[in-house]
């Protein structure tokens, strides 16, 4: 199960498991975003390289307008995935307080 929606403060809330089978749906959602946004990962359990791909794609598109995604409440395992990929240098990432 994976869900992606806008939260009450305009942030993008992701929950569940973002695997390769969910990426088309996640990308359709992110393609509708055109300004700087916070992604709340507090309920996101899992991400794979396919998920990184759509985040990168969105970040590159927003960069053309000088905007960027910020990712907050990232769990330890997902944080490792970002670090191993060097995504911590191209995204503003805040770990979860656990």
């Amino acid at each position, binding site marked *: 199960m994976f869900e992606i929606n806008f939260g009450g403060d305009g942030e993008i809330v992701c929950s569940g498991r973002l695997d*390769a089978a969910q990426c088309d749906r996640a990308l359709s959602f992110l393609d509708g975003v055109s300004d700087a946004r916070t992604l709340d990962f507090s309920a996101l359990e899992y991400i*794979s*390289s396919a998920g990184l791909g759509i985040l990168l794609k969105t970040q590159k598109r927003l960069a053309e307008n000088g905007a960027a995604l910020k990712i907050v409440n990232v769990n330890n395992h997902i944080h490792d995935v970002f670090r191993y990929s060097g995504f911590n240098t191209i995204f503003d990432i805040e770990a979860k307080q656990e």
Partner: protein
Amino acid sequence: MRKKFARDFDSLSAIYEFTEGVLAAHDLGEAVRFPVHLAMEELFTNMVKYNHDSDGEIEVDVAVDAGVVTVTLTEHDVDEFDVTRPREIDTSASLGERTPGGLGLHLLQNIVDNLDYEYRDRRSRVIFTKESG
């Protein structure tokens, strides 16, 4: 603990649930489950993406012994591709220099403890291990 799955991204949730069952039966926690699921997904999706001409199923075997998880993925009638070869990835590239993709095997190689590849009679087999705790 061997099971065959259709060569399709939609098999990912079935693979996930099956593996969860095996790992849960051995009381393994999230610290080992996360990297095992990730490594399996990266390998399985590559088999789907790059060997789509082969229409056979992909065989998945998950074994746990003394806290060590061993996962074997086997596919038949495919070309050789050695997943253990080091990847040349620049993880310090800037946003502008990056293109999506190309991170799966790099992640895989970083998160498993052991990674082996066997190729014989057009049968490809990837074996990885991950120790708990």
